[in-house]
């Protein structure tokens, strides 16, 4: 419940509409309450006194009030829908912004499918909760209290006999909310699981097909589907009992009026019109109670969804700028140091992914990183832009700990092509200029030429305006990678990181990219994670990572002599090493690294 109130703050900007809508509602309630009184007047003063004028007059008044009440209800409804939609839009945006602020390790723990449920279904539920509350949440209690007062003034002793019934109904509703709340949470959780499987299968459809895993995935889906269905059936069973039960309680009230009130009429303490008005009041009391039960159902689900939304909203990005974080100057030298850096992923303390790594990259140096898959190369370079915080040790840029720097000013000096190439839907131009939307055409073309992708782009009918579909499915792996490289070098960063970003590019083109890069960004410190040894030959420094440890460090010439592990990699890829010692380029390369 607290969470539901917490999100009320998102309604604040639409306070005016919300208040008007409430005021209209109060008017509607008063008008609704007037109706039974008027009916009583028709029966007692009109029909029984045979006074036709009163009947017509009162009927006309009733008609007018009903019409006005309908119009007000519609206005109230329209306004509450508007407020609800605006609220949902703002909240979605807040979550989106929040997700953008999260760190890699936060994101590791969120699942896309579940996140989508939180962003869509949960927000819808919460929106519905507010909208329905605005429409009936106020009306219900007002109507109930109002008609109890009116009943009391009509016949106090009869009212008192019905009170236990009201209390019973209320108790039932409260119980209903308490029971249903946790189940609704489970419903949303199961829906999250369902969507995770769905999401994974849609995103990974190519893999599922390639490995003929359809049957397996269908079984997987069947399991989560069954979970979701059975929890849903549990909810429905509750509802299928509670509503008839509430109906029954209302009917018991009518019965009580007929029986107890009938005896009063017989003994002459109540009029027939009184009985009719009384049962009308009871209906106006119990009717809202029934609607309140429906609202209870919605509130219970709203509570569950509010919790789930709050879990995302209140996630604390675990990479935070400290108080007084320093800004890096406009230009930096680009010296990168690792000082006894150890690292393990979320809570998994036994397994060190990086183990006491110390190394220095001087400004302008070209550092090549080699190592088996899973040895920790990506992890290592992800520490430079502080995508993750080190578990022990420090990462220093120009002598300053990255933890002491303003995140944006740090990132402004780093260009990175992640191992997994991600392009956005939009034109090729938009993708290349993603980090610098105001880049000039020349800048863009130089970046594209350096990445050896300009000629390809120009061969397309629409050139740079060719649209890339989501995730770049209409481009080859190598084309995507080269666009991603162009995107990174367009920024002319002082520190450039290429994480295995030429793995799908042929060797010849790769060499061209390297040569062009050398020209373009002479002063930049570059980290190149590579699979092919041919890529690393000219590096100023080669680093070999083996199971998280720094296994070797030096130039090619040094390592080929001193490091057995380097020699092993070298031999496995280039065969007998002597061939190549003074011949920079080599074409007969085993690319299956």
């Amino acid at each position, binding site marked *: 419940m607290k969470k539901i109130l917490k999100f009320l703050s998102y309604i604040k900007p639409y306070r005016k509409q919300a208040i008007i809508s409430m005021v209209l509602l109060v008017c509607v309630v008063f008008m609704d309450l007037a109706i039974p009184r008027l009916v009583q007047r028709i029966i007692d003063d009109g029909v029984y006194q045979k006074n036709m004028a009163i009947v017509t007059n009162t009927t006309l008044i009733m008609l007018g009030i009903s019409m006005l009440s309908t119009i007000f209800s519609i206005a109230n409804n329209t306004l509450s829908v508007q407020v609800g939609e605006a609220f949902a839009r703002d909240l979605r945006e807040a979550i989106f912004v929040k997700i953008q602020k999260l760190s890699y390790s936060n994101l590791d723990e969120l699942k*896309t499918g579940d996140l989508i449920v939180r962003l869509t279904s949960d927000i819808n539920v919460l929106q519905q909760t507010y909208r329905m509350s605005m429409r009936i949440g106020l009306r219900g209690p007002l109507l109930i209290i109002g008609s109890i007062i009116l009943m009391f003034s009509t016949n106090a002793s009869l009212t008192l006999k019905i009170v236990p019934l009201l209390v019973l109904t209320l108790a039932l509703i409260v119980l209903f909310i308490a029971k249903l709340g946790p189940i609704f949470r489970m419903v949303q959780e199961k829906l999250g699981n369902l969507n995770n499987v769905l999401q994974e299968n849609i995103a990974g459809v190519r893999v599922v097909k390639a490995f003929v895993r359809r049957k397996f995935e269908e079984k997987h889906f069947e399991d989560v589907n069954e979970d979701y269905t059975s929890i849903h059936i549990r909810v429905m069973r509750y509802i299928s009992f509670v509503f008839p039960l509430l109906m029954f309680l209302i009917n018991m009230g009518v019965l009580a009026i007929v029986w107890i009130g009938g005896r009063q009429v017989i003994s002459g303490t109540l009029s027939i019109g009184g009985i009719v008005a009384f049962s009308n009041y009871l209906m106006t009391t119990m009717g809202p109670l029934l609607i309140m039960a429906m609202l209870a159902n919605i509130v219970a689900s709203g509570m569950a969804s509010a919790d789930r939304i709050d879990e995302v909203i209140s996630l604390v990005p675990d990479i935070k700028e400290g108080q007084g974080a320093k800004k890096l100057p406009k230009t930096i030298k680009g010296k990168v140091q690792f000082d006894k850096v150890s690292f393990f992923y979320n809570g998994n303390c036994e397994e060190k992914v990086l183990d006491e790594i110390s190394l220095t990259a001087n400004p302008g140096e070209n550092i090549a990183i080699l190592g088996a898959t899973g040895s920790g190369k990506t992890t290592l370079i992800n520490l430079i832009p502080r995508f993750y915080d080190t578990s022990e040790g420090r990462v220093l840029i120009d002598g300053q700990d990255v933890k002491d720097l303003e995140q944006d000013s740090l990132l402004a000096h780093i260009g990175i092509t992640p191992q997994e190439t991600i392009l956005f839907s939009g034109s090729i131009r938009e993708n290349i200029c993603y980090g610098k939307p105001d880049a000039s055409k020349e800048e863009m073309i130089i970046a594209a030429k350096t990445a050896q992708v300009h000629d390809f782009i120009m061969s397309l009918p629409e050139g740079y305006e060719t649209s890339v579909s989501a995730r770049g499915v209409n481009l080859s792996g190598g084309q995507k990678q080269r666009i991603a490289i162009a995107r990174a070098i367009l920024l002319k960063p002082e520190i450039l990181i290429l994480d295995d970003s030429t793995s799908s590019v042929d060797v010849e083109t790769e060499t061209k990219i390297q040569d062009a890069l050398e020209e373009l960004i002479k002063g930049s410190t570059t980290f190149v994670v590579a699979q092919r040894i041919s890529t690393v030959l000219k590096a100023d420094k080669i680093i070999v990572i083996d199971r998280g440890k720094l296994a070797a460090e030096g130039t090619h010439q040094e390592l080929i002599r001193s490091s057995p592990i380097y020699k092993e990699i070298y031999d496995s890829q280039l065969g007998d090493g002597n061939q190549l010692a003074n011949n920079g380029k080599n074409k007969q390369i085993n690319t299956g690294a």
Partner: protein
Amino acid sequence: MAEQNKQNKRPQGPAHGMGPIRGVIEKPKDVKKSIQRTASYFAAYKVELIFVFFLVILYTLAGLAGPYLMGVAIDGYITEKDLPGLTRIALIMLGAYLLSLILQAIANWIMANASQKALKKMRTDLFHHLQFLSLRFFDRNPAGDLMSRLTNDINAINQAVSMNVTSL
């Protein structure tokens, strides 16, 4: 997700790179066919549905008996000052209401099971169908779009069916 692009130094429009969340209600291309297809899922529960149908008629009648009996009570017994008669008719009303309660609960219960199972079958078939679509289809339809379509639609059908069970 983990490899999310962080090069973006200038915050761009928040909608960038995310599947569109559409609030627009699309009209089904062929209403008749859509209804038929949806109905076919419930056809598997014919027996249950027919049973529920009779229950609904019965409890509606029992429910209608209430106001009718109330009229009888007022005109026939209260105005006639017939106390034993009033008690008798009150008991009959109690019976009618109880009957209505029980029948309604049973009908709802059966409907809840049947409709949720039909929906489950619908989701299973949908997933099965997805597995057989060509890669060309997945190239044309961005994953985000498909996801929002599927989740929203599953949700919408769910809500429609759940609502109608209680207000049959």
